């Protein structure tokens, strides 16, 4: 005798309780605090802020704790929270030239005003496990020097002065907000950049890598990569002027790409742009490469049919919250549709068998 599957509610409650227990792990081990995650897992926090599109290190750290370290799950928590927040308005564009740089490197010039600053990078570490960290090693003393004061001009501006780099038209209007209007194609570059900056790091990285390997190759030099804090200012209508509402850390990458020219225009370098919340340089460089690949139409290049050139392909598949939700939904029951397929395939096989035996009889 079949007992119908009941008890979904109790199963869900019990699953949640078990999840909470697993999250805490061994009670003998001290519990992680949100502050510890915020301070010691900063790059994870940065990724969650970037792809969650919400600059709040405390909430990102909380989300990472709640998600048991599953960063896409943490990003999802942040997105679901973010969407409940009111939108007060748009800030003025951040002036990255005034950034207090913690890191600033250029691959195109040996030196430039403002200097090269390596900053806290993994770049030249030897990837050897540091067993001292397992024994609670305290960091060694860090040498200090005078910080660079004043603005740090963009490397690109030097090329700009010589007219060697293609100019970007200034956009005065406030761009659409990807999270408030449905994406319709073709999308403006502003929308594309919004989509890329919150897109999945792995996906954007893979696409960028594909351009380097020849799928719409446009050899990119990192003209400049800078990481540091910038002021966010907003015009307050009641006041009639802009005030600083906070400071955020961002990573900015500008690439200078192979030149192009035409009968009317002498050859010029072109550029790709990446700007991402937090210290997220892999993402920012990837973003710049994909941005550049997506610009083929406006720059009069050929469509080579490469994935990174296909705006619809890139924008519709870069969001990991959309992707993971749809991917994982195939865990849900599908027995109604599967049943209809079962019946169809039985019918088709029956008909095929009948036809074969008819032929044999003849």
């Amino acid at each position: 005798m079949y007992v119908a599957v009941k008890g979904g509610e109790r199963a869900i409650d019990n699953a949640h309780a078990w999840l909470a227990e697993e999250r805490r792990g061994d009670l003998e081990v001290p519990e992680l605090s949100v502050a510890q995650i915020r301070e010691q897992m900063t790059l994870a926090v940065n990724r969650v802020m970037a792809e969650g599109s919400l600059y709040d290190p405390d909430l990102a750290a909380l989300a990472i704790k709640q998600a048991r370290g599953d960063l896409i799950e943490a990003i999802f928590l942040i997105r679901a929270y973010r969407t409940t927040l009111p939108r007060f308005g748009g800030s003025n564009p951040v002036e990255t030239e005034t950034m207090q740089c913690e890191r600033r490197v250029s691959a195109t010039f040996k030196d430039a005003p403002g200097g090269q600053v390596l900053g806290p990078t993994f770049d030249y570490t030897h990837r050897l496990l540091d067993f001292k960290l397992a024994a609670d090693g305290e960091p060694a003393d860090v040498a200090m020097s005078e910080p660079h004061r004043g603005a740090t001009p963009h490397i690109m501006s030097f090329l700009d002065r010589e007219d060697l780099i293609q100019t970007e038209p200034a956009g005065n209007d406030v761009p659409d907000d990807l999270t408030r209007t449905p994406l319709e194609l073709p999308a403006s570059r502003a929308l594309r950049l919004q989509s890329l900056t919150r897109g999945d790091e792995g996906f954007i990285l893979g696409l960028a890598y594909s351009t380097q390997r020849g799928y719409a190759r446009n050899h990119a030099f990192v003209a400049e990569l800078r990481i540091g804090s910038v002021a966010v200012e907003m015009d307050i209508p009641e006041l009639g002027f802009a005030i600083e509402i906070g400071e955020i850390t961002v990573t900015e990458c500008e690439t200078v790409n192979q030149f192009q020219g035409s009968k009317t225009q002498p050859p010029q370098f072109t550029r790709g742009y990446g700007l991402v919340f937090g210290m997220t340089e892999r993402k920012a460089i990837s973003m710049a490469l994909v941005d550049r690949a997506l610009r083929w139409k406006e720059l009069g290049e050929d469509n080579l049919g490469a994935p990174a050139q296909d705006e619809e392909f890139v924008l519709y598949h870069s969001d990991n919250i959309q992707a993971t939700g749809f991917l994982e939904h195939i865990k849900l029951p599908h027995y109604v549709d599967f049943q209809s397929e079962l019946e169809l395939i039985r019918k088709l096989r029956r008909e095929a068998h009948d036809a074969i035996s008819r032929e044999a009889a003849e």
Partner: protein
Amino acid sequence: MSDYNFAYLDEQTKRMIRRAILKGLAIPGYQVPFASREMPMPYGWGTGGVQVSAAVLTPDDTFKVIDQGADDTTNAVSIRRFFQKTAGVAVTEATAEASVIQTRHRIPEQDLRADQILVYQVPIPEPLRFLEPSEVETRKMHALEEYGLMHVKLYEDISQHGDIATAYAYPVKVEGRYVMDPSPIPKFDNPKLEMAGIQIFGAGREQRIYAIPPYTQVVSLDFDDYPFQPTKADHACDLCGAEESYLDELIMNDAGGRMFMCSDTDYCATRRKQGHVGAQGVPYKEAAT
């Protein structure tokens, strides 16, 4: 729960969704883009349906959620709880008592009335998607009413398999204009798409809403010599004996034993309460459920 607005979404968002719904009702079968929000459940798990439900629910409504026809599947439970928590609306498992029914993959067996709304969860709203992956292209095809590709696909099915090899999400033409994906309901349910109730389809991840107003003509695509045939398992329900309802097949043991039961759990329970007993059923009161 007072931390959130009634039915979770803020009023501005609901207004935006209601506009999309009204536009959808005005152009039956047309996919209206809307600024889908991130919901606290994953994309692909009914976020489109949840946003539509949130936009149409009022405090006086009675809400029912089914997944695969059943009220007690885990995701149906989760969505029902969500609205109990955020909207405090009454909930029911009885089709007749509900004013708003959110569904995944089924249309209830019992005919809906004019005062009922059926909200569908839609994974891929574009009926032409698997023939043409580009959204830019498919929107153009709809605009030009260029549906030849779909007919070629159905024709190729017949030439290859001797039959139209689509068993669910079977494409329909709405009011002689738009070809529409009825969501992954079995084609058995297609004839029920012409009904008294309002039908609204929500695709959250794909940011589309579409609708079928009451008594709108909905025709399943077919050919004169290969007419559309709604199909179901050739059995009666083993619990309630119903012969006209869509059935789930259950594997009972590893010797190939199986039984069939109504996918619509409320329909089945109601019939058993009325005294109907299927081949393997027991009278309702003694049932363990």
